[in-house]
């Protein structure tokens, strides 16, 4: 520009400035609201649970490490959630053992090996898979896969850890695939070109270059899958058989923390100990997912620092 004299800076009208600051405030509010909501949820859940935590006959050790869950006993009420926690872990671990290899494999295939047109079709189908409501998964678990489990293993009852794990795996694979694929796609093409120029095969490119480079994103994908599996309620309620029992094999029925809340909160009288203990298991669940997220965050940070 060759303006001889600096033009006076255009003054915005008051209305415009007011609008701007208003908008800015609004955006800030929506940013902060996430924190507010998380804290509020934690606060309200804990407030419902608090009276029982601070009551004299409550034993935190027993709550966490006793397997005896007798919330409606007529003579000796016991609230031990250990079997439920183990049930949640067992089902989630199995689901991840199935879903992680399949999910990451599919992500690698989609981003590196698959033709453009097939990729678009597959992505749409995978997104459809993640749109199936969990109750529908529960139905499938109860009516279809449970019978397959009986036929395949000869188990007496088809609703068990294996059944729940398979269904949860099916539910979390789409998440792992779509986030994993994004992570792999985010690796700059120059990495691939450099590796190929050095004479690496396609497979070497994937596991020597792409997987290390996309480690953060892939870890995030897996952990979001874990979160989906731990938090799932309706499908596991219908798939696992709902038995308070430490599983000795894949063919035993279990009950998870989430399913237990879903099944019992409806009939627990509001304000009773049972009701409050169910909220406390909600807090426990919150702590577990919180711990998983923190570990994930730290892991990603660690990876980033090294990388």
């Amino acid at each position, binding site marked *: 520009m060759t303006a001889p004299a600096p033009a006076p800076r255009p003054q915005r009208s008051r209305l415009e400035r007011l609008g701007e600051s208003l908008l800015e405030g609004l955006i800030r509010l929506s940013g902060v609201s996430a924190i507010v909501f998380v804290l509020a949820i934690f606060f309200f859940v804990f407030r419902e649970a608090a009276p029982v935590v601070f009551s004299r006959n409550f034993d935190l050790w027993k709550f966490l490490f006793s397997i005896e869950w007798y919330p409606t006993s007529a003579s000796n009420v016991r609230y031990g959630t250990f079997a439920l926690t183990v049930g949640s872990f067992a089902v989630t671990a199995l689901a991840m053992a199935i879903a992680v290899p399949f999910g990451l494999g599919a992500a690698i295939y989609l981003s590196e090996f698959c033709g453009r047109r097939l990729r678009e079709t597959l992505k749409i189908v995978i997104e459809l898979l993640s749109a199936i409501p969990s109750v529908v998964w529960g139905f499938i678990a109860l009516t279809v896969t449970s019978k397959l489990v009986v036929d395949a293993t000869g188990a007496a*009852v088809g609703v068990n850890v294996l059944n729940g794990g398979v269904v949860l795996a099916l539910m979390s694979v789409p998440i792992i695939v779509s986030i994993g694929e994004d992570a792999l796609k985010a690796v700059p093409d120059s990495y691939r070109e450099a590796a190929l120029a050095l004479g690496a095969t396609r497979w070497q490119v994937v596991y020597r270059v792409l997987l290390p480079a996309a480690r953060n994103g892939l870890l995030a994908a897996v952990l979001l899958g874990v979160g989906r599996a731990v938090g799932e309620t309706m499908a596991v309620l219908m798939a696992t058989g709902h038995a308070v029992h430490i599983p000795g094999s894949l063919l035993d029925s279990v009950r998870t923390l989430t399913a237990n809340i879903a099944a019992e909160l409806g009939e627990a*009288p509001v304000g009773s100990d049972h009701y409050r203990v169910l909220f406390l298991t909600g807090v426990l669940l919150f702590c577990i997912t919180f711990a998983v997220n923190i570990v994930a965050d730290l892991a990603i940070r660690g990876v980033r620092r090294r990388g």
Partner: protein
Amino acid sequence: MPSAPQSRRRVGLTLAAALSFACAGGREASGPATVIQNKGSDTMVNVAQAWAEEYALVAPDVKVEVSGGGSGVGIAALIKGAVDIASASRNIKDEEIEQVRLNTGKDPRDFVVGYDALAVYVHEDNPLTHLDRETLAGIFGEHGTIERWSELGVRFPGVEDDRIVRVSRQSSSGTFEFFRSWVVGKKDFKLGSRDLNGSKEVVELVGHTLTAIGFSGMGYATPAVKMLGLADAPGAAPVPPSLDAVLDGSYPLARSLHLYTLGEPKGATQAYLDWILSEPGQQVVARSGYVPVPPSARAAAGAGAAAR
């Protein structure tokens, strides 16, 4: 291909049509003058729904809205004054009566509208025909030692794993409480049973599990399961689960079905309860798999409970 404005106009027309339709529908829906809210027992939700549908033919200006959730849920709603009628498959507890009084200043009014008989179900191929209470306590009770069918002398040819698969209900259900109190009184059940969420699910799981035993309402029987006769004590003669045995009181696992109102019901609610206790209403009970109140006791079911 239609041009954009054209298709927009079409959308507009469709919208208008939908709106006018919705308005018309709305007017029709607001037709019934009174709505009766009925909430409670999952055991009774089928029969309550059947009553509501049948009653809509008798009295089109009254709409009965039925929802389940459990006996406790229904009574909790009654305590809040959120429903007109609470259905319960158990007697209202003293502390619940107290809460009703505190919250609403009224006494809950109890109507016995039928009987539910629980049956102990096994797979149809199970050779067992009856059990006594002590054996059931051994199977279901907390320190019970019976774990395998062979301990009861039952053999399934070709089946290696003859562990008894116990099928139960979630511990807050009225059915569970009723069965537990009959089998072990105030004691508890063993952990590790499959606690299902509905009466139908229990029968279904028992129906396709050879080594299973479970309990559920008599009305849910299917050809795939068998109901066992029950005896109160090891030596006593087992009573087969039949309507007669329920009515004459010899069948041990039967209970009455209740509807509770806040105070003496009035107007539409009263008419509805009278109808339920009349012949057509009781036929609905029988059709739903429950046992109707015998004609001689119907007047008492309506009036006698006022003394409670």
